[in-house]
């Protein structure tokens, strides 16, 4: 037995989930600030990213220390590598949340002329649930949940694509919406990238549990193809997010 090693591993665990909680909270607050057009809150949240960056470096240093001192192998090695990679993804999500805060203006997205191709609030909810599910998959070693997150990513990509392709037509009809729509498009892009980060975390969970690297090979994932975090009917533009798997 290696009690010191496991103590270090538990410490990595705690730091990682603390970081995940802070990033999720930050993202949630940033999205609310954006939707409300609350620029003051958005500015405050940008400062939060400095703390997330500091935590990222501290956790990375801890991982490097564990690698150097204990030279873990097999499942232990995969765990430390996974912590390193998830840590980097969380920091990236923090940066993307800062981008969303940067898009916040006093003009609320709700002021846009209908119809919009996607219910924006539902899209943000779906991305946040994807992120939450990827962290839950990591903490509960749940490969199936991780696979569900991966399958959901393509639907978020579709939603972002729908926003982008709607842009020229919308500003032609409502030129006064251009600034708000551009901001919305920027946030949509950030959300799409956050979904990618959540997908990367889910891929890391599969690597951690099985040793398989499934990046670039999602076709090999077993199970049904229907994404879990999706709009109920992609054609009509309504975006009702399914209940997350309990």
């Amino acid at each position, binding site marked *: 037995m290696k009690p010191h090693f496991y103590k270090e591993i538990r410490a990595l665990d705690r730091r990682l989930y603390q970081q995940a909680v802070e990033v999720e909270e930050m993202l949630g607050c940033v999205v609310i600030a954006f939707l409300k057009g609350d620029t003051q809150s958005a500015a405050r949240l940008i400062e939060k990213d400095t703390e997330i960056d500091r935590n990222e470096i501290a956790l990375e240093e801890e991982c490097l220390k564990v690698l150097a001192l204990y*030279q873990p*192998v*097999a499942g232990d090695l995969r765990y430390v590598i996974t912590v390193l990679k998830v840590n980097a993804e969380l920091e990236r999500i923090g940066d993307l949340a800062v981008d969303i805060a940067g898009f916040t203006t006093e003009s609320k997205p709700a002021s846009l002329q209908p119809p919009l191709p996607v219910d924006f609030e539902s899209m943000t909810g779906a991305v946040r649930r994807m992120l939450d599910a990827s962290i839950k998959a990591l903490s509960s070693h749940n490969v199936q949940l991780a696979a569900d997150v991966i399958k959901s990513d393509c639907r978020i990509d579709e939603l972002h694509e729908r926003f982008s392709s709607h842009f020229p037509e919308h500003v032609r009809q409502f030129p006064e919406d251009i600034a708000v729509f551009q901001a919305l498009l920027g946030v949509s892009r950030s959300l799409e990238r956050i979904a990618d980060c959540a997908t990367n975390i889910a891929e890391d969970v599969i690597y951690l549990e099985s040793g398989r690297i499934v990046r670039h090979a999602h076709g090999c994932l077993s199970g049904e193809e229907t994404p879990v975090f999706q709009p109920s009917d992609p054609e009509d533009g309504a975006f009702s997010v399914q209940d997350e798997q309990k």
Partner: protein
Amino acid sequence: MLDTLLSPKEKLKIKIAARDLSFFYGDHQALFANNLEIPENRITAVIGPSGCGKSTHLRIYNRIFELYRDQRAEGEVLIDGVNILDRNVDVLELRRKVGMIFQRPTPFPMSVFDNVAYGMRLHFKLRKSEIAERVEGALRGASLWEEVKDKLNGSGIALSGGQQQRLCIARTIAAEPDILLLDEPTSAIDPVATLKIEELLLSLRKRFTIVIVTHNMQQASRISDFTAFFYKGRIVEHDTTTRIFTNPSNKKTEEYITGRFG
């Protein structure tokens, strides 16, 4: 079996094949019908907790166990297709072909030169000049020449522990074996000397098939191409070293290499 461990492009010749190999110390059975294929010109590490039978398995390959009473092997060990457990096998020639290096350096109480020349004098009839040439070649092969070329007539026992172990490797390779068996060759020497031995083994891999028993997981992962994990007299897992140390398929292997037991 080895075919399943390799990529289709990597076809390796099997140098040693143990078939249903069992071993007994008197009435006590230490190994249980094991099968293992060792590829040519590769380093295979044998790992496992104390008493699992890894050294016992190694000692069968050159029949050194026959020097002790009440020990016997059952099954087959094919080296280049020949069962070396067959009674008709010339054991002296087998031990030339399958050299062995032990945990503690075992230099003979004679000069550095004579230590290396000893084996070749035993096996070959050579002129003095040929012996001198081969001694130099063996010492160079063991990465020791530069350190001892000016004290060839000095005692082998006066060398440092790491140098003594490399002297033993020089003595073994001077007999021109095909296979080198190493039983925890660095457990009695310091980390710097250990790294020199490891570098040496990596360079010797081109000329010899190497099987190394080690308790040092990092050593196994650093230098070997394949790893076999023994537990309670049985081979639990045999795979490429990369796979064993990143994603072993057997839970027992994982528990052992991650230090959860042993």
